[in-house]
């Protein structure tokens, strides 16, 4: 690839492209990271944990040495309206002896002790890498514990080395499917609610986002049966088969679950996105269209009009200050990246670089289709690549996760966390304003004025904002 810099690793070339420069719009993705690279990627366990962790009344027990549990202790930022049990960190803290002689006994003890203490309806037991190697029979231990305590004890097959984060999403979805699997004839598949009831997949209620969307839906006459998994409880999740539609927000983590729910319970699914005004309105319209209900369609239109009008002047104010700024995107999944591009367009901001950790081929196809010419598109980028393209493209702002923040700041590039560390809800109409506000807060901060004095850098914002 002629546009690749000398310090781009050869094997990485096929994972980077520039729109308009190459004829083929085909990107190598979903491959394993290369040994010896500074990859920003996480593991299977990480993927499984982020999906399941928001189940608030569950005991999340990490079977492994202490680290895997420590690093995931309450970092997700998903809010609960009830139990706070999920915010504790439970680990079997495997020691050398357990590694040699197996950790099954300790695991069984841990489950016993925790269940006695917390009376939870479900225990998720996460396998970490070591467990995969020492060969503990998680299934057997969990089955026994389930019988003993009369609750669900579900193993999550999330040993880190069996793939990347996406494999973890799937492991989590498998665990959820086991949770909702009907245990009696009381809830035969196909026995749908009379009311318009949906499951909302792929919202983890970060900063209360699921609550915002649930409220919109209520206003147009749709009841959210359960969210997967933001602010969810075991008992709600088990009612999932009763819904008449599944809507998916974070497709990366939940597409598989939606497919399974369709197959097993005959619930159709639809992709939605509540990021940005355009996508939010479009999503509400398609939900109303699905139910073929005139009243609902009317209510949806009213809501869209009302909410759009309510944020219009604020959005225009931000747009005025932010237009022609340049943004770079590096996020987990492809679908989020796509929504972000649209959202930046609403603010008049040009996206000059876009990448994901786990985007899939069809996501990259869409990204390529909607990106402007010259936009750099990349999969599983390392920090040097992020630096190089942000600098080359003169990005003022990076959207990313925890590891990217200080990198951006060092370059004099403003930053927004669109991951676990986000502070305000970014979904829906309110979220669109919050997003604009966050962009403005960082891009137009006076600190860049002083930062500029240190020489180098892209330095967001100034002078016009």
């Amino acid at each position, binding site marked *: 690839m002629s546009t690749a810099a000398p310090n781009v690793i050869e094997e990485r070339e096929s994972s980077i492209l520039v729109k308009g420069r190459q004829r083929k719009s085909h990107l190598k993705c979903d491959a394993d990271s290369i040994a010896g690279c500074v990859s920003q990627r996480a593991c299977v366990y990480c993927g499984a944990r982020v999906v399941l962790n928001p189940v608030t009344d569950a005991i999340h027990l990490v079977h492994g040495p*202490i680290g895997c549990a420590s690093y995931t202790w309450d970092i997700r930022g998903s809010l609960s309206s009830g139990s706070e049990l999920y915010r504790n960190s439970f680990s079997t803290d495997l020691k050398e002896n357990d590694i040699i002689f197996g950790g099954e006994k300790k695991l069984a003890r841990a489950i016993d002790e925790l269940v006695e203490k917390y009376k939870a309806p479900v225990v998720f037991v996460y396998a970490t890498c070591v467990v995969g190697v020492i060969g503990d029979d998680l299934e057997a231990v969990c089955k026994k514990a389930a019988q003993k305590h009369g609750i669900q004890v579900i193993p999550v097959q999330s040993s880190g080395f069996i793939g990347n984060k996406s494999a973890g999403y799937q492991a989590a979805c498998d665990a959820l499917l086991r949770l909702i699997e009907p245990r009696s004839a009381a809830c035969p598949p196909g026995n749908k609610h009379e009311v318009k009831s949906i499951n909302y997949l792929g919202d983890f209620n970060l900063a209360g986002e699921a609550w915002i969307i649930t409220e919109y839906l209520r206003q147009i006459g749709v009841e959210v049966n359960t969210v997967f998994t933001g602010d969810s409880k075991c008992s709600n999740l088990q009612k999932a088969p009763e819904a008449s539609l599944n809507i998916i927000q974070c497709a990366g983590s939940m597409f598989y679950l939606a497919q399974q729910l369709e197959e097993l319970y005959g619930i159709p699914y639809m992709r939605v996105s509540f990021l940005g005004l355009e996508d939010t309105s479009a999503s509400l319209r398609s939900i109303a269209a699905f139910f073929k209900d005139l009243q609902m369609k009317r209510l949806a239109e009213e809501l869209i009009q009302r909410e759009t009008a309510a944020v219009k002047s604020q959005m225009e104010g931000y747009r005025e200050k932010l237009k022609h700024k340049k943004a770079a995107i590096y996020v987990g999944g492809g679908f989020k990246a796509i929504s972000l591009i649209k959202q930046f367009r609403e603010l008049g901001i040009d996206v000059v670089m876009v990448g994901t950790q786990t985007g899939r081929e069809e996501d990259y196809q869409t990204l390529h289709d909607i990106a402007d010419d010259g936009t750099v598109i990349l999969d599983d980028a390392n920090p*040097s690549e992020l630096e190089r393209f942000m600098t080359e493209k003169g990005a003022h702002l990076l959207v990313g996760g925890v590891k990217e923040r200080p990198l951006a700041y060092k370059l004099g590039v403003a930053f927004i966390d669109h991951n676990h560390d986000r502070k305000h809800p970014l979904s829906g109409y309110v979220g669109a304003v919050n997003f604009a506000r966050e962009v403005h807060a960082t891009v137009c901060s006076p600190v860049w004025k002083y930062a500029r004095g240190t020489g180098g850098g892209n330095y967001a914002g100034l002078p016009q904002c």
Partner: protein
Amino acid sequence: MLDCTPKEVIKRSGGLINPAKTCQPIGAMYAALGIHNCLPHSHGSQGCCAYHRSHLTRHFREPVMATTSSFTEGASVFGGGANLKTAIKNVFDIYNPDVMAVHTTCLSETIGDDISTIIKSAEVPEGKVVIHANTPSYQGSHITGFSNMVKGMVEYLARADTDGKKEQVNIIPGFVDPGDMREIKRLVGKMGIKFIMFPDTSGVMDSPMTGKFDMFPAGGAQVEDIRDAGNSSLTMALGYYASSTPANLLERNCRVPAITLKTPIGIKATDDFLMTLRSKFTLEIPYELEEERGQLVDVMTDTHHHFYDKKVAIFGDPDILTGLTEFVLSLGMQPVHVLTGTPSGTLGGPQGIFEKEINEMLAAARLEGRVKAAGDLFELHQWIKNEPVDLLMGNTYGKYIARAEDIPFVRVGFPILDRSTHPYLPIVGYRGALRLVEMISNALLDRQDRDAADEDLELVM
């Protein structure tokens, strides 16, 4: 709401609830960042590396660069040798550090990869070094991992190659923030002694904003200096858990005498540190440091009535805790609960040395308290429910307990994920002690102000 901890203490044997420690590799990674131009490398699946980098990034708010062997299922069956060799090649081809510091993970340890053999058979470019440390997380804690990586530095780098020893001291600072390392260097500098500090994360994990991203920031211990550490006349290991093993190894390998001291937190430990330097190198303590000490004592006398009889619970890493416990005792407080997650006998040393040391301090002050190594925060919380305290000190994870029990909270130690500037400001030395006095008394007095009835609100305190 966040209070899920029952008061009644029950015996547990099935793992930890709300840990007060984390795993070895993150300590090794942090130590390796204290070598100039060094790239830490995590030999295992990519998840561990991502977690360790994120966690360090959250505490230091700095980019943390490290590579991984990216194990897949194949590697976990056939061993990770091929991955590591590829990684070594790629690391030098692409990132070109002077040193690559490999640490293992639970996975590669369990599989049993023999790292030194793999390194020996790998192609390492001329003038470059690959060092390694075994860091299985099913032993010890992040402090053990730090210690093991520093041991790796000694093993691979330090050499005794002069006749006789040089008038210079090696300082192994332990798992402390870069601001602490700077302060220790300042103190030794003021004493006028030539020193080599390793690892030294100052200038790496507290690097300035320049508008550029440096994969390898300007700070860190130079490789030549670590080599030369074999020629020093003394090694001072600050903190038994993080620093004594590498210091002892250096004594064995290069015959540099080693002394282990407490991390110089608080007035007494700082005195000990400076007095040791003075006696070993027959120097005078300069007036400036005497002045700093006098100022600290001045502030301690000005404020001691705030601390009288106040009960405090402290948790965190063992080396920090010994200094902190000693210091709060010297302020007149009562450290009734002291807990670390790090197991006490990790280093093959006598079991229970942590508990013994703290209990002796308490006994000397005619106090009794609960002291425990290898504990967790669930247990600490239960202790506090059974014997309430006026103040909690520890890392960010203490905030749940502080909120549930409504007690003032001073953040100190690792990790601090919800506040900033701590990496820059020391808690060691007399200056650091002054800062501790400020933090502790602010927390106590802010609470007193908050709770005061209108008629009791005081202007002068």
